[in-house]
C-alpha cells in the first residue's frame, strides 16, 4: 500500500508534486541529511500546510521549491514537478523566470524582509518586472493591492520606507507584494511566527480571503497547529527531515495515525482542554541528521518503538481515503487511535 497507489480526491494533476526529494547540507562536521525521501502534493487552488518542530526541515523544503537554498545545499535525489515540469532539471534562467511570476514567497521575519533603503513603491514596482505596462500602471496595481491587504491610506503610504511601518503592516506589505504578481503557487514560510497572536489571526484570515480571490495554491509552513487548522485544506507533518504523515486537515487533526502527530497535537496549547499548570512536551530531542540513517527516525522518542523500528525504515501506509503515515504500528496492528 504505497503512496503511489492512493489517489488524491482531485482528479486533475497536482500543481506541485514533490517526489522522493533528498537534500544534504555540507558542513564542517560532515553532511547533514536535511531532507530524506520527501514526497508531497500541492493540488491546484488548495492550501497545504507543513507542520513540525524547529529543525524538521519544513523551511528547507519551502526554500528548495523556490530554489533559494544557501550555497552549501545539495539536492541528492528526487524531483519537484511544477505544472508538470521538473524544477530541479530546469536551466537556472528558466527557473528564475518562474519566480515572481508563477511562484512567489512570503518570509518569516517581516522586519528584515524589505529593503531598508528603498521605498515600498519602488520595491513593489520592481517586482512586477514580468508584467507589461507603464510605471504608473504598475504603481496603480500596487496601490490597489496595498488597499486590499488593509494598509490604510495607501496613496500617501506607498512612498514611505519600510521602517515607517509596524511589523504587522510590513507583513501585509509582503503579502501584497507576493500576491501582486498573481502567482499560481504561494510559498509562505512561517508568515505569522514573528507576529503577536491578534495580528496572526488577522493575517491568516487575510491570506485565506486572498487565496480564494486569486485562486492560487499555498504551501504554508508553520509550527502553529491552530493556524494550519484555520487555513489549510491538507497538511503534512514533518519530523527530522521526513514527512511522517499527511492527509486532509480534518483527518489528521481528528484521527492522527503517527505517534509523532499525536504527540504534537497533545502539546498544542490551543487543544488542551483540561486546565493544567504544566504544558505537555515530547520528551527527548530531534536526532542529529549527520551520517546515514537506518530505521524509523522517530524511534528514539517513541513510546511504541520496537526492534523493527531500529532495523527497518517504515514505508507509507494508507489510512482511510486520503491519509498516509510512515509507522510500523500501522502494518502490525492497523492501529487507529480513537
Amino acid at each position: 500500500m504505497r503512496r503511489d497507489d492512493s489517489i488524491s480526491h482531485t482528479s486533475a494533476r497536482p500543481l506541485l508534486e514533490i517526489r522522493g526529494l533528498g537534500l544534504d547540507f555540507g558542513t564542517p562536521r560532515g553532511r547533514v541529511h536535511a531532507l530524506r525521501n520527501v514526497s508531497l502534493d500541492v493540488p491546484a487552488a488548495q492550501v497545504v500546510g507543513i507542520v513540525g518542530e524547529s529543525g524538521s526541515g519544513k523551511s528547507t523544503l519551502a526554500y528548495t521549491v523556490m530554489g533559494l537554498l544557501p550555497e552549501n545545499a545539495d539536492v541528492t535525489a528526487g524531483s519537484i514537478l511544477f505544472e508538470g515540469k521538473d524544477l530541479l532539471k530546469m536551466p537556472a534562467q528558466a527557473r528564475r523566470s518562474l519566480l515572481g511570476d508563477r511562484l512567489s514567497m512570503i518570509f518569516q521575519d517581516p522586519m528584515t524582509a524589505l529593503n531598508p533603503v528603498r521605498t515600498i513603491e519602488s520595491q513593489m514596482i520592481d517586482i512586477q518586472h514580468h508584467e507589461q505596462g507603464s510605471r504608473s500602471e504598475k504603481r496603480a496595481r500596487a496601490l490597489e493591492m496595498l488597499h486590499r491587504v488593509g494598509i490604510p491610506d495607501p496613496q500617501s503610504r506607498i512612498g514611505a520606507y519600510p521602517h515607517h511601518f509596524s511589523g504587522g503592516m510590513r507583513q501585509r506589505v509582503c503579502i501584497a507584494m507576493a500576491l501582486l504578481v498573481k502567482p499560481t503557487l504561494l510559498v509562505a514560510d512561517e508568515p505569522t511566527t514573528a507576529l503577536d497572536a491578534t495580528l496572526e489571526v488577522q493575517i491568516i484570515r487575510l491570506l485565506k480571503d486572498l487565496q480564494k480571490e486569486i485562486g492560487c495554491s499555498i504551501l504554508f509552513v508553520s509550527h502553529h497547529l491552530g493556524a494550519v487548522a484555520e487555513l489549510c485544506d491538507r497538511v503534512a507533518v514533518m519530523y527530522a527531515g521526513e514527512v511522517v504523515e499527511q492527509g486532509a486537515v480534518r483527518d489528521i487533526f481528528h484521527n492522527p495515525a503517527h505517534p509523532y502527530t499525536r504527540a504534537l497535537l497533545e502539546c498544542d496549547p490551543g487543544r488542551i482542554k483540561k486546565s493544567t499548570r504544566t504544558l505537555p512536551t515530547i520528551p527527548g530531542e530531534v536526532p542529529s541528521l549527520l551520517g546515514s540513517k537506518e530505521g524509523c527516525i522517530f524511534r528514539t522518542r517513541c513510546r511504541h518503538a520496537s526492534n523493527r523500528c531500529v532495523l527497518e525504515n517504515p514505508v507509507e501506509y494508507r489510512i482511510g481515503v486520503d491519509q498516509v503515515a510512515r509507522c510500523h504500528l500501522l502494518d502490525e496492528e492497523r492501529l487507529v487511535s480513537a
Partner: protein
Amino acid sequence: MWLYLVKRIILAIANIAIAVTFLFLMIRAVPGDPAAVLLGTRATPEMKAQLHEQMGLDKPFIVQIATFFGGLLHGDLGFDVFSQRAVADIVFEQLPYTLELILVSILWAVLVAVPLGCYSAMRRNSLVDQVAGVVTVATIAIPSFVVAVYALLIFAVTLRWLPAIGVGIGFWDGLIYLILPAFAIGIGWVGYISRLVRASMLEILGENHIRMARSFGISEWRIIARYALPLAILPTVTILGVGIAWLLSSAVFIEVVFARPGIGTLIVNAVNTRNYPIVMGVVLVTTFLIVAATTLSDVVNAFLDPRTREKLGHGKR
C-alpha cells in the same frame, strides 16, 4: 531633528580648536625667541621685529592665543615676511592643484574599485576573486611614492609614453599630465575600497531582504546594483571622509616626484627654507580640510540611509 548635525559640527569645531591650540603651543614650546625660531638664520633684524609685533610676543600669553584664533576666524593665517604676502593667499593659490590631483585619483579608484568589489563578492572564491584578494593587499601595502618613482621610470623615462614632470597647459594636456600621478595615488585605494565593498557586499547579500528580492526572480545584477550596493557603499563613504588625510599625505610625495605645484610641494620647500609661517599655514588648512571631510562624510552617510536621514530633518516624522 537637527540635533545630529549640530552635534557633529560642535564636535568638529572642538577638534579644530584643540588642534590649533596644540599647534600654537608647539611653536612656543621651542626654546628661544619664537620669532627668531620661526624665521631661522636667514632673517634680518627688521624681519624679526616685524614678526615680533605681528605675533604680539610682548603681550600676555592669553592675548596671544586669542589674537591667533581671532586671526584664523578672519581667514588670517599669518604673514610670510620673505615674500611679503599673506600666508593664506599663498596656500589657497596652491590648494586647487592638490585638490584636483586627489579628486581625480580617488575618482578613478572608486570607479574601478566598486565594480571590482561587487564582482568579487558575486563570484566569491573564483579566480578573479582570489587573484584580486592578493593583489589588493599588495597595492594597499606598497607606498605611493615607490609606485610613483617606478611609474615615472617605466612610462616616462624608459617608454616615454607619458610626460614626467609638470602639470601641462590646458584641460586635455593637464589630464595627460595627471595620468601617472593619479595612478600612483589611486592604486592603493583601488585595493582598499574593493576589499571594503566586497566585505560589506557579502554581508548585505546574506540579508533577508536580498533573499526576498531573489524570490521575485529579480536579476542578480539588478539585485547587486539596486538592492545591495546602496547599503554596501556606506562604509566606503565613511572611509573616503577619513581618507582625505591619507590622500593629502600621498599628494605631498606625488607632487614632489612629478614636480607639480600644490600644497605638498609648498610645504616641502617651506620646510627646506625654514619658512615656518607657511608650514603652519599648510598644516592649519589641511587639518581644517580633514575635519570638514570627516564631518561631511558622516553627514552624507546618515543622509544616504533613510533610517538615519530623518534625524537630519528631511523626513516626515
